[in-house]
């Protein structure tokens, strides 16, 4: 189809609106974190100002627990991402290559359980976790986050692996490869985009998750979003400069991660949408 100048202009405007819609709130948060607190809500709003790092200094001085919480977030996020990728890859391979009534049933079951709101399992789980002395540990959050995304991850991996010709598996078998070798040396390298797609989903979910972290942590495994909620719920008045600085710091790992893997994301999310 031939593109007219009007067509191109409309596309550009639409693109600009989408970028503005997505990026403007982030821009506001970052700029607010660099303003003196008293100017953040000044009227008329100031877009030209002398940036200051005072809010960041105050953040780390007044909320030392925030640093620990970020470390906890990182441990839990990386742990959950790796665990989910490991299990989803194995499950995806099984669903893709093997056929049985049990597997079809379990695949269907995984979709069904994903439809339940997490709060349904959260509260009954609390006394059990407490009894097992797993409360306030990184391990419990890693396992829960992995469980939340394992069904979606397995289906993504199955879709990817369905596209890898079975002939490659058969050729490897003829060459004497074991099942493990087929998976590691043949399937995994060809599933990188799927692994990244699963990783992005789990990473973003685990980094931002609040409900489970709130229910199952106290001090040792408390994550970043809990500290942000505390800052918002201040009795003495919210210190917006510090809050925006914390929100900016909280954004950084996600932005870095997404920038690093962005070339895989689009390919990963669209791959498998068309057969053949």
């Amino acid at each position, binding site marked *: 189809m031939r593109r007219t100048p009007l067509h191109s202009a409309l596309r550009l405007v639409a693109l600009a609106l989408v970028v503005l819609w997505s990026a403007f709130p982030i821009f506001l948060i970052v700029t607010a974190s660099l303003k003196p607190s*008293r100017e953040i809500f000044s*009227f008329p709003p100031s877009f030209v100002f002398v940036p200051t790092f005072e809010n960041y200094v105050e953040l780390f001085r007044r909320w030392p627990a925030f640093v620990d919480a970020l470390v906890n977030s990182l441990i839990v996020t990386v742990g959950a991402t790796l665990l989910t990728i490991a299990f989803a890859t194995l499950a995806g391979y099984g669903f893709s290559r093997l056929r049985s009534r049990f597997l079809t049933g379990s695949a269907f079951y995984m979709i069904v359980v994903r439809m339940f709101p997490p709060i349904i399992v959260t509260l009954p789980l609390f006394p059990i976790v407490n009894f097992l002395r797993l409360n306030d540990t990184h391990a419990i959050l890693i396992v829960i986050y992995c469980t939340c995304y394992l069904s979606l991850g397995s289906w993504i991996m199955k879709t990817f692996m369905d596209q890898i010709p079975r002939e490659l598996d058969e050729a490897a078998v003829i060459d004497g490869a074991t099942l493990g070798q087929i998976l590691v040396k043949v399937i995994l390298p060809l599933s990188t985009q799927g692994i990244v797609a699963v990783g992005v989903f789990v990473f973003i979910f685990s980094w931002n998750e609040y409900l489970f972290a709130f229910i199952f942590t106290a001090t040792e495994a408390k994550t970043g979003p809990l500290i942000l909620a505390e800052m918002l719920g201040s009795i003495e*008045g919210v210190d917006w400069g510090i809050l925006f600085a914390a929100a900016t710091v909280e954004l950084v790992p996600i932005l870095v991660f997404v920038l690093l893997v962005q070339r895989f994301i689009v390919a990963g999310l669209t791959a498998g949408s068309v057969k053949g």
Partner: protein
Amino acid sequence: MTRLKTVGLAALAFAALASQAWAQSKELNVIGHAVHQRAMGSGEANLTNPWQSATGTKVNWITFDIPALYERLMREASLGETTIDVAFLLNSQANENVFNLLEPLDELQKANPIEDMDDVFPGMVEAMKHDGKLYAIPFRHTPSGLHYNEEYFKERGIAGPPKTVEEMFEYAKKLTYTRADGTKVAGLIFTGNHPANIVDIARAWDGDFLTLKYELAMTRPPMIKAITALKGLFDAGAYPKNFMTLKSDDIDTWMQTGRAAMAVSTISKSKNYNDPKNSQFPGKLKVVNLPISAELAGKYQVAPAKVEFWSMVIPKNSKNKALAWDFIRHVMAKDSILKSALNGNGSVRSSVYERQEYSSQVPWAEVEQKVLKVARVPVPPLAKAPEAIDIFLEGYQAAILGMKSPQAAMDEVASRVKPLLPK
């Protein structure tokens, strides 16, 4: 040095380190809001340091925002056993369902009493009793006052703060204007997502939503007068159109940025409002007591505004009750309460207001002291408080927006709230 001596010295050093570690091995878990932790002070000045050293206990603070804190306490206290030893509880959350999960403190107080308990405001202590037993020890209070922007008062030719509530409404109309720099100023603001500040206004006529004896006071003349006056203010454009959604944070921001001339809010927020780092009007945002109605001028010096307070409790299923009580005793000692008050904590001991080091450092001390003599809680402890509050706000909004008369709206609120009250 022989090999034997080296080994011996190493063993001694190890034993010393181990004994030190053992001495510090006890832990006490305290669940509260960050504001309670800050009240204890930080670093070397932390008022719990001497207690931690003396008892060989490490205090672990677990902090949440208010709703999350309550939810966590209820969940932990419902278990067979909890690791939470001391918790902070807001007066409005202290209902019979909660008391059933807490340790009665009378025996502990009898065996090992808190220093001069009579010095703690008796009304607060009384509110923490259920079936004649004491369940919580008050630690922090937050009474309401009237904050006003002195610069705006001068701009509008108003000499000083209002002396009666009628004057306050009149000033609010005068103070609703647009400044030369384009800032639109609201005459009077307060939170609209909770009845506490609406009750504050009704207190100018000694009114209530529910009395401490659970009587339906919202249909009585004081509350009706308050709502009628506020509707008049709304009709005159001097009460913000978004009054229903104004939250505590909005009130703070509006005052700090000059979007409002007067606000009903916690007195101690004066510190935050005048902080040069956060406020565009440092030193110009004054706080006074909420004025009483001219009708009650002889009865009260200031309006019996609302006071809310936090108390310390021990969950019934805690494993360290004796240690928890010892901690409470330490932070409730006169010297500790003074230190926490100097850290910004509302003192629950009346004697602190007589201390020169307190009154000289806290400019609003006198305002607080005046209101604490007459203040009372905005809503009594009620298990179904969230539902009752929603019903009240619905009626209040209908009255302000003119959908119903104040009396009709409150009559309906009363009929719907009645079944929620304790039998």
